[in-house]
C-alpha cells in the first residue's frame, strides 16, 4: 500500500510535467491540425538555456535562488522566441499544403534543434544546479521533496492561467474562433496568422517551464532529453483527446500515474523478468490501446478527418 501511494505521488509529479508539455501539442493541434513534433525539443532548449544562465549568474556571485529565477525567465523568453520562429520559418510557408508536409517538417525541425543543441551545449549530460533546498516531507508513509511539491503547484497554476487565457481573454476567444473556423474568424477581423503564432508562443512558454522542472527534478539535462519527453507528452495529449485542453491536463496526469504504477509493480507482475527501467513501455502501450479503441481520446469530441 505504501508503494501504491508513493507511486501515485511520483506519478502526479511526472504527470504534471507531461501535462504542461501536452498542452503545447494540443493547442497547436486544436488550432491548425498540426502535430508539432519539435515541441519536445523546445522543452530541451528551455532546460539547457536555464542551466547556462543560472550557472553563469551563480558563478558571478548571484545567490542561487535568484540566479535560478533569472534562468527560468530566460528559458521562457528564449523558448517563446523559438516557438515563434518555428512557426514563422518552418510551418507558415506550408500553410495550405497537404497535412503530411508540415508533419514531416516538424520531425525535421526536431532533428535540427537536437543537433544545434548538441553543437552549442555538447554531447555530455549537464548537471542541473539544485535550485531549491532539499527538504523532505513525510505523509502517511510516503516521502516527497520540496521540488516535487513546487512542480505540482506551479504546473497547476500555469494550467489555471492557460484556462483563463483561453476562456476569458480576447486572445483566447480568437484562438477558439480560429480553431472552429479559420476562414470566418479572419472575415471577422481576426488575424489568424497572429493567432497561430500566439498558440506557438504560449505553448513554448509552458514547455520552457516544463524543461526547467524536468531539469531540477532529475538534476540533469541533455540535448536528447526532449525526444522521449515529447513522445510521452504527445501520448498524454492523445490519451486525453488531442485538441482538448482539459484532455491534455487529465491525460498528462493520468499517464504519469500509469507509468509510475507500472514501474512500481512491473517487477512483481513479471516475476522479476522486467525491471522498473522498462517503465517507458507503459506510455506506448497506452498510446496503442487508445488509438485502437478510442482514437478520439477520453475527452475528445470528434476526430473526423484530422489525424
Amino acid at each position, binding site marked *: 500500500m505504501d508503494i501504491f501511494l508513493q507511486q501515485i505521488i511520483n506519478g502526479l509529479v511526472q504527470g504534471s510535467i507531461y501535462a504542461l508539455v501536452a498542452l503545447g501539442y494540443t493547442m497547436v493541434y486544436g488550432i491548425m491540425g498540426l502535430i508539432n513534433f519539435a515541441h519536445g525539443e523546445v522543452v530541451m532548449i528551455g532546460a539547457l538555456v536555464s542551466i547556462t544562465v543560472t550557472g553563469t549568474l551563480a558563478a558571478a556571485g548571484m545567490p542561487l535562488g535568484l540566479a535560478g529565477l533569472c534562468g527560468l525567465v530566460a528559458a521562457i523568453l528564449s523558448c517563446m522566441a523559438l516557438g515563434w520562429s518555428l512557426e514563422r520559418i518552418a510551418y507558415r510557408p506550408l500553410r495550405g499544403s497537404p497535412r503530411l508536409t508540415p508533419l514531416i517538417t516538424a520531425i525535421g525541425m526536431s532533428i535540427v534543434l537536437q543537433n544545434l543543441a548538441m553543437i552549442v551545449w555538447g554531447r555530455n549530460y549537464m548537471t542541473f544546479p539544485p535550485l531549491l533546498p532539499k527538504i523532505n516531507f513525510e505523509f502517511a508513509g510516503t516521502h516527497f521533496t520540496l521540488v516535487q511539491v513546487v512542480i505540482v503547484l506551479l504546473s497547476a497554476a500555469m494550467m489555471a*492561467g492557460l484556462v*483563463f*487565457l483561453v476562456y*476569458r*481573454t*480576447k*486572445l*483566447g*476567444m*480568437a484562438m*477558439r*474562433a480560429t480553431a*472552429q*473556423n479559420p*476562414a*470566418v*474568424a*479572419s*472575415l*471577422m*477581423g*481576426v*488575424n*489568424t496568422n*497572429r493567432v497561430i*503564432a*500566439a498558440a506557438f*508562443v*504560449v505553448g513554448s*512558454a509552458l514547455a520552457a517551464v516544463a524543461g526547467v522542472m524536468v531539469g531540477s527534478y532529475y538534476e540533469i539535462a541533455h540535448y536528447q532529453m526532449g525526444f522521449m519527453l515529447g513522445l510521452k507528452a504527445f501520448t498524454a495529449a492523445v490519451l486525453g483527446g488531442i485538441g482538448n485542453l482539459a484532455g491534455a491536463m487529465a491525460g498528462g496526469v493520468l499517464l504519469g500515474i500509469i507509468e509510475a504504477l507500472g514501474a512500481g509493480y512491473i517487477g512483481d507482475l513479471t516475476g522479476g523478468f522486467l525491471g522498473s527501467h522498462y517503465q517507458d513501455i507503459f506510455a506506448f502501450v497506452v498510446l496503442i490501446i487508445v488509438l485502437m479503441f478510442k482514437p478520439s481520446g477520453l475527452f475528445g469530441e470528434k476526430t473526423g478527418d484530422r489525424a
Partner: protein
Amino acid sequence: MSDILLEAKAVAKHFGGVKALRDVSLTIRRGEVYGLIGPNGAGKTTFFNCMTGLYIPDGGGFVFDGLALQADAPHQAAERGIARTFQNIRLFGNMTAIENVMVGRHVRTKAGVFGAMLMNRRTRDEEAAIRQRALELLHYVDIADRADDLAKNLSYGDQRRLEIARALATEPKLLCLDEPAAGMNATETEELRVLIEGIRNDGTTVLLIEHDVKLVMGLCDRVAVLDYGSLVIEDVPAVVQKDQRVIEAYLGA
C-alpha cells in the same frame, strides 16, 4: 469625404471555364441600403467573396472608402470596415452568443499576446469594454437574453440575428448581408426589415443580397441585378422592377 463608399471596377472572376463575374462595375453610396439580386448562380455570393478577400478577382478591383481594397487577406477587409454575414450561417457554434460577438470586437482592440499573458491593467479594462459592447450589440439585435447560450443552441432566426451582431461588432462602414431572410417566415422577415432599417438609420451602409424580391424592393434605396455574372441594371427599385431585361432574367426569356 466622398459620397461613394464602395466602387467595384470591372471585377471579373473565373472558375475554370465558368465566368462567374464578367466585368461587374457598380457603386455603393454612403448611408444607403443597396440591394444585389439575381437568379441562383448569377454570381452574387462570388461578388461578396471577392470583395471580402475570400477570392482573389481575376480582373478589376474595388475602391473602398477612397482607397484600393487589398484583397489578399480577409482580416484586412474587416479592418478597413467591411463586415459580412453568410448565406449558410457560419457562427462559432461551440462558443456562447456573447463570445461570438466579442470575437468581432477583436479588430477594434489592441491588447496582444503579452497583454493576455500578463493581464495588466490596460488589458483588463479592454476585456471589460469588449464584453460591455458585445452585450449592447446583443440588446441591439434583441437576443441579449441568450447571451450565455452556445451559438449552436440558438433558434434559426436568433442565429441570423447573432451573425448580424457579430458583424456589427467590427464597427463596419459597410455591412454585407448574404440572404439574411433565407428560411424566415413572414413575421421574422418583417422583424429583419425593421432591424436593417435601424442599422441604416444609425449610419451604417448596408449591402443586401436577397432572393425575397418584396423585401429588397421595399427596403433598398438602389438595386443592382446580376445575371450570368454580368450586371444587368443598377437603379432605384421602381425602375428596376419595370425593366424588361430583369423580368426576362427572372422568368426566362
